[in-house]
């Protein structure tokens, strides 16, 4: 496990000035509650973030979209089930269809699965309880826009906070996902081992985050946006956002 000083590298990013600022959209559904944390994370990294209200029918010009955590529509019926019918979700589907980068976190993961933009589904934690704690994430595929800046062997210590985060997909879907490199992150021990006791919710194969086949839509249950400053416990979540930023830069 390598320790890289994220704080110093962060300053190099912010030092680049306004010229290279990217614009992130953060969707806001009724009941979203980590929307502000997403904006905070993007601003910490020196880029711009804008809220996009769920009733909007277009996204405007954005470089990437974040679908935040929370309890959209109270998580009634199923987490994400109601939100995915919001007007903004049609615009999001078009954005994704055209190759736009979309990252979902927690409730955002649930919404993207419900919307069919990601495979699988999230069910009740095997403990049947809400779980709020820090976990370690191991990156399985580092060749994606969401993982490219994460150094090899870098574990990320990030918090989880969810009641329905047990990832499920059937066997054939999983095989297909594996062959396309769609599994991005798994829960790991502090030593980086993929052991069952590191898995906080019972997710199949310890999966914490996945992406679509095209590789431009991804989501994870843990909250990297709540781990972008040492002051609040960890800055490891930056690696994911820095990957996005790097990718946007490369694409320019």
């Amino acid at each position, binding site marked *: 496990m390598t320790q890289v000083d994220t704080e110093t590298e962060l300053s190099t990013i912010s030092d680049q000035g306004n010229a290279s600022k990217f614009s992130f959209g953060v969707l806001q559904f009724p009941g979203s509650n980590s929307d502000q944390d997403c904006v905070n994370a993007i601003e910490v990294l020196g880029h711009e973030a804008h809220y996009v209200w769920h009733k909007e029918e277009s996204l405007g010009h954005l470089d990437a979209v974040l679908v935040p955590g929370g309890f959209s529509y109270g998580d009634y019926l199923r987490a994400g089930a109601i939100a995915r019918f919001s007007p903004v979700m049609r615009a999001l589907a078009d954005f994704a269809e055209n190759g736009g980068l979309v990252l979902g976190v927690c409730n955002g993961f649930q919404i993207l699965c419900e919307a069919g933009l990601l495979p699988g589904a999230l069910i009740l934690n095997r*403990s049947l309880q809400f779980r709020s704690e820090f976990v370690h994430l191991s990156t399985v595929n580092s060749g994606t826009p969401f993982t490219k800046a994460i150094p090899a062997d870098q574990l990320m210590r990030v918090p989880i906070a969810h009641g329905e985060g047990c990832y499920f997909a059937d066997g054939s879907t999983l095989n297909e996902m594996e062959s396309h490199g769609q599994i991005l992150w798994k829960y790991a021990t502090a030593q980086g081992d993929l052991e069952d006791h590191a898995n906080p919710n019972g997710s199949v194969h310890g999966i914490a985050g996945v992406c679509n086949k095209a590789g431009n839509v991804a989501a994870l249950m843990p909250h990297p946006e709540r781990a972008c400053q040492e002051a609040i416990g960890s800055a490891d979540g930056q690696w994911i956002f820095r990957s996005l930023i790097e990718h946007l830069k490369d694409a320019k």
Partner: protein
Amino acid sequence: MMVPVRFEWQIMKVKIIITPKKAVLDPQGQAVLNALEHMGYDGVKDVHVGRFLELELSGDKASMESRIEEACHRFLSNPVIEDYRVEWEE
């Protein structure tokens, strides 16, 4: 302002039962089973826990039937993890 209803629609009730697919983990069912065993209810062999919805509808039954089917498939259940069954009642 509410416009008074002109002619009598049928008032129907429909029950929708949504259960986890067999291949999907049912931690709730397992927990209930364990708890029942623990409490000495030893004849219980298996438990599944799902969701139950009761809808009150007004309208024409035939067209409602297909719409409810559609709602179940699109929205009320998640076909990746759940099966559903619809029971009509007058």
